[in-house]
Each structure stands twice: as structure tokens, then as C-alpha cells.
């Protein structure tokens, strides 16, 4: 099969799929092709200027509309529910610290995590239980899902906004960095 035929088959399969497809899913349907990742990148490039884009999210491929056309489309589709501040914050803590336990989320946020918050994030398909930490009490850990990456248009967790800066500043560590200056300031004198 020529590359053109392979590209046609790939685009038809990704287009018809009900959920984003992994490389293995695509290979199962179109058969083994020379370089599937390369073909997918070519296809994505050819769609980039169009109103429909082919995108990779968390290792899975899907078609979606171009972000700049949202105003044409919002009336077509049901609006999504807005997340509460607590839910957004909890989602951010999980995404930037995963895998993370509930006590750790509570420590970072300074308040108890209400049961509903994690439920909402799991029901949205963005957060999943990710095994137990092998420490006393074996607390359950939470992590994000490929659906989270897809929803927020992230290719991978490395694309999380500001991830590298936060890591460099030590703000994703459990303990404050030692070399931080003593924050006494001059207010006490």
C-alpha cells in the first residue's frame, strides 16, 4: 500500500473512532505501515491550517475543530459546566504533583478535600485512582488520565503550563528548598 493509501486509511480510522486512538489501535485497523508515527505527523501537518485538526493528546490521536473557530461552534453544542475553584485547584495539585495522596492534596491546599471534589474530577474522567503508596496506612494515590490531557489540549504532562519553572523553583517538592532566604522581612522590627 502506498503512503497515500496509508494516509487515507489512517484518517478514516481516526475519524470514525469513538475515542482517541493509540498507535496500537490505529495499527490494528490499518495494518502495519512503514512508519506510523511519521505518517501521523505528516497528516497532522496537512490538517494544521484547516478547520479540523489532527492532534495527539496523551499518546492518543483524534480529530477536533481548530480552537480559533469556537465561536462558530458553541451554539451547536451543549455548553460545558464550569468547575468550582476548589475543583480547579485540586485538579491542578493532582496534575502537577501526581501521583499524590489525599492528605498531600489537603496539606498543599490547607483545607480538607471534600468528597464531592474528587468525585467530580473522576466523573469528568480527568482523575483516576493510581494505586496505593507503600507507606504506613497505604494511602490511595491519585493521578490524571489521558482524558485530562485531551480535554485541556495537552500533548503530554510535560506541556502543563509553567511545569518547568515550578520544578526549578522547588515548588513541586514536598519540602522547602534549603537555600531559600529567611523570610523574616523588616516588619517585625
Amino acid at each position, binding site marked *: 500500500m502506498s503512503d497515500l493509501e496509508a494516509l487515507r486509511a489512517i484518517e478514516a480510522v481516526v475519524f470514525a*473512532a469513538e475515542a482517541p486512538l493509540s498507535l496500537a489501535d490505529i495499527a490494528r485497523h490499518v495494518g502495519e505501515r512503514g512508519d506510523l508515527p511519521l505518517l501521523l505527523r505528516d497528516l497532522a501537518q496537512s490538517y494544521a491550517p484547516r478547520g479540523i485538526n489532527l492532534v495527539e493528546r496523551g499518546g492518543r490521536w483524534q480529530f477536533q475543530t481548530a480552537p480559533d473557530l469556537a465561536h462558530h*461552534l458553541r451554539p451547536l453544542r451543549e455548553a460545558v459546566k464550569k468547575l468550582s475553584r476548589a475543583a480547579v485547584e485540586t485538579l*491542578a495539585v493532582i496534575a502537577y504533583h501526581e501521583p499524590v495522596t489525599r492528605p498531600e492534596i489537603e496539606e498543599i*491546599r*490547607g483545607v480538607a478535600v471534600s468528597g464531592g471534589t474528587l468525585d467530580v474530577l473522576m466523573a469528568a474522567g480527568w482523575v483516576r485512582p493510581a494505586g496505593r503508596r507503600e507507606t504506613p496506612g497505604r494511602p490511595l494515590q491519585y493521578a490524571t488520565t489521558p482524558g485530562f490531557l485531551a480535554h485541556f489540549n495537552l500533548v503530554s504532562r510535560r506541556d*502543563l503550563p*509553567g511545569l518547568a519553572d*515550578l520544578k526549578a523553583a522547588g*515548588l513541586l517538592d514536598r519540602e522547602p528548598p534549603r537555600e531559600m532566604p529567611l523570610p523574616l522581612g523588616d516588619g517585625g522590627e
Partner: protein
Amino acid sequence: MNEDDFDTPARAAPSTLVLQLGSWEGPLDLLLTLARAQKVDLAEISILALVDQYLAFIRDAKALSLELAADYLVMAAWLAYLKSALLLPADPEAEPDPADMALRLQFQLQRLDAMREAGAALLARPQIGWDVFPRAAPEGLVFETRPIYDTSLYDLLASYGAIKARSAVGVHVVRRRPVMALDEAIERLEALLGRAIDWTELARFLPGDLADESYARSVLASTFVAALELTRLGKASLSQGAPFAPILVKARP
């Protein structure tokens, strides 16, 4: 602490502090707002000034007889302790080190602030269902499975045979079977044993002509039971060297 999951209005950080306890998500949230009002860069905030602001806030709240949640009071007590420890001449023995505690508080504030900003940055990204849209009704991919049946001709013929056998007219005739009755077997074995002084295989006492299979089975069974019966009556002894070894029998004097 009110934690509705949807549609909680985002509030702006006030430039002047307004007493509105219900709107804070706990003491750390309040501290962060106070710190934010103090300095834009949390790395440079004054912890002592922050402690004073927090304590003043709590004092005012008490003056207004507002119900203060326990965790706000716990934080106030802890901050008062931290302040006094920081102001005392450094005690190398102090455990935990107040400077470490101040560092930790600053770190917590910075981390919470970073997570708030990260959440806002996430929400600012193009989102599915708001900025980008997948297909509403994709056809779906399916694997169709075609069964391959591995039925053999033998299966086919055997099942036809089974049907025919099932439907054959089922008249059951009880056949008269040639049998050796137990009484007859006991009589016969006792007579034969009378002449055997040595151990002899039980099989040697079976009749020689056993062409009829069902009669042979009957003779074997009856002769064996007869041997057991004669032994019980003390007229014979039985012996067998090992399981399934030949059964030996002799007359008892």
C-alpha cells in the same frame, strides 16, 4: 468553609481587608490573601508582618463577635508562637527551629499560590467542548468476528447416530442371563477346596469353559464372594501378596 463544586464565584483579592470569614477557604487561604496584599513576590514577603496582619484580623473578628472556626484559632495560636520564637534571641537548641518553621510557611504559601495560578492557566487553555470540538456522532470502529466452526464429520455422524438411537422404539426385554448363583458357587468351591491342601490361586477354581462373557463375569463374582463366605465360616483362608496380586486360597483343616 463552603465548597460548592460548581459556580462558586471567583473573588478578587481585596486591597483593604474586609471581614468576610465565610469566603475564605481556611486559614492558609486567608494568609495567602494577606501575603498577596503585602507583596507581589511571595519570595520577598515578611513573615513577621504577615503574622501581625493575621493576628489583627482574628482580633477584629473577635471584636465583632464573629464565630471563628477552630482552625483559624489554631493557626492564630501557632503564628503567635512562631512570632515570639522568631523575636527571641536565636536558641540553637530550639526544636523545631523557628527559622525553619517560617521557611515552611513561606513555602506553603508559594506552593498554594503556584497551584492557583496553574489552575487558572489550565482553564485558560483551549478546552474540549468549549474551544475545540470532537465529532458529535462518530460511526465507531468495530471488529466483526466471523466464527469458524470446527465440527468434524465424526461429530456429524455420531450425532445422527444418537438421534436414531434415541428415536428407536424402546421395548425393553429382560434377558435371562446365564449366571452362577452364590449358593451354587459356595457348594462348588467348598467341594474343590477339600482337595487343595496348599495355597492355590482362586482363579484356578474357575470353570475352564467361560466362552460366554456375561456368564464368566457372574462366575468370577460369585466365586470371589463364595471364597469370602467360606473364610467367614472358618472353612478357608485367603491371602493376597499385594493389591491386584493373585488371590490365594486354601482349605482350613
